């Protein structure tokens, strides 16, 4: 392992490797990525692969909308098929109040360049032919939303950055920082120290702990979300389907498996990768309610991952107050994967040019938490 690098990135997930890629692409290749376990151990290897622009705040929409554009080019850029499939996202409303909220959200989407719309039950049946529409009063649909295979994205980035000269050090944990003059001078790891100019904190649910090592306080809280996968089936389901009664989301991945998750309002914050039988029962009820034909389909595997949740459900980006060369890239509250093309690009711009150019990152800065929240948390968080 090198003992000196221009940039040290903490976290071998989609944000860490994605930032390494954006930097290397711009010519900055003296970059080390530190991963305390194996690549894909964290949320990047555990999420459901949903990609959507149907969010509730302008900032989240912009990040997601531009990221979808970038995901479209990613397979070609990385020379690695990331299995991006735009089958749309179908949000199902079962009461008039929810439908009204969807109507309001889609009207807002039209003002920010997202082609979502409210559709009736008949059209929802065409989009998802096997759907049990009993109780459904309407839905919102955006055809350019879709799904991706997270493992393939990570493999693609990982191979590409290694080819470009970036060092990815797995099984290498960060133990602390040497700081002076308001800057990190060295990153201490389980395999030795690395002197550096800039440090990126892309450690997912561990980001708050990493920031604390440098004396920076983040309000992020890790919250467990469970997920499961069935055996593979013949393709029958194009869109990601979301049941707004329960927060159930399900899609058919490119291997034919059904991947599904469901939120638990009683989940307490804290890192916990355990799987529960309660989840399995709730998700199975949710799936068979929506798709009775799936009753005999077998569950193959369940697991859990962590959302890194901020008070306003928006990511944390940019420089850290008091530690100028520590750049935050975390707190994406369950949608970090789908906005990673943009958040990594913005982070790379900040490192390369001293300023994020593609978008104003003021709404994502750490210091926003020092003031009372100006906006409501994004109501479109699910799962």
């Amino acid at each position: 392992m090198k003992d000196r690098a221009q940039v040290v990135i903490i976290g071998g997930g989609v944000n860490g490797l994605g930032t390494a890629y954006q930097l290397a692409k711009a010519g900055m290749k003296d970059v080390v990525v530190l991963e305390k376990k194996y690549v894909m151990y964290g949320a990047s290897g555990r999420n459901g692969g949903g990609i959507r622009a149907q969010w509730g705040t302008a900032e989240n929409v912009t990040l997601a909308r531009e990221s979808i554009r970038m995901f479209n080019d990613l397979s070609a850029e990385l020379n690695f098929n990331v299995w991006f499939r735009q089958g749309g996202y179908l949000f199902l409303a079962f009461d008039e109040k929810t439908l009204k909220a969807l109507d309001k959200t889609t009207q807002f989407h039209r003002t920010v360049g997202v082609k979502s719309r409210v559709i009736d039950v008949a059209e929802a049946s065409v989009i998802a032919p096997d759907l049990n529409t009993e109780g459904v009063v309407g839905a919102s649909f955006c055809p350019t939303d879709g799904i991706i295979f997270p493992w393939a994205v990570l493999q693609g980035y990982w191979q590409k950055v290694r080819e470009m000269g970036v060092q990815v050090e797995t099984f290498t944990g960060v133990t602390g920082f040497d700081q002076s003059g308001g800057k990190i001078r060295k990153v201490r790891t389980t395999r030795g120290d690395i002197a550096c100019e800039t440090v990126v904190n892309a450690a997912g649910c561990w980001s708050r702990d990493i920031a604390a090592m440098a004396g920076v306080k983040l309000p992020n809280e890790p919250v467990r979300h469970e997920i499961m996968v069935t055996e593979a089936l013949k393709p029958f389901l194009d869109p990601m389907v979301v049941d707004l009664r329960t927060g159930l989301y399900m899609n058919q991945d490119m291997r034919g498996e059904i991947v599904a998750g469901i939120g638990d309002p009683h989940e307490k914050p804290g890192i916990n990768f355990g799987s529960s039988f309660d989840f399995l029962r709730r998700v199975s009820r949710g799936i068979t309610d929506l798709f009775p034909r799936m009753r005999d389909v077998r569950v193959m595997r369940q697991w859990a991952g962590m959302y890194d949740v901020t008070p306003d459900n928006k990511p944390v980006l940019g420089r850290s107050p008091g530690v100028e060369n520590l750049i935050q890239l975390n707190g994406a509250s369950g949608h970090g994967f789908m906005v990673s093309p943009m958040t990594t690009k913005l982070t790379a711009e900040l490192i390369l040019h001293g300023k994020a150019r593609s978008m104003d990152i003021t709404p994502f800065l750490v210091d926003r938490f020092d003031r009372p929240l100006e906006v409501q948390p994004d109501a479109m968080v699910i799962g």
Partner: protein
Amino acid sequence: MTTPKKIVCLCEDVTEHEVEEAVKAGYSDLESLKRYTGLATGPCQGKACLCTARLIMARAAGTDLSRVGGITFRPPVQPIPLKFLAAKEEKE
């Protein structure tokens, strides 16, 4: 003419050659190999292939089995139809 193949993972159709190539490409622990080749992600969830895969990995990497590691086994132990999990209990 087809080349003879030695299949390691029957569910996901991963060959001995592919495991060896993956090790050469730097996938040196079993968790990483799983996520690269899809090995152990099919209906048997690794019950039929993991011992063989670990031996091949250790041999290809010139290391011992402990360095190859294992994978986290996930519930359920056997695939279960959704209808059994979705069924209501009598008291409900």
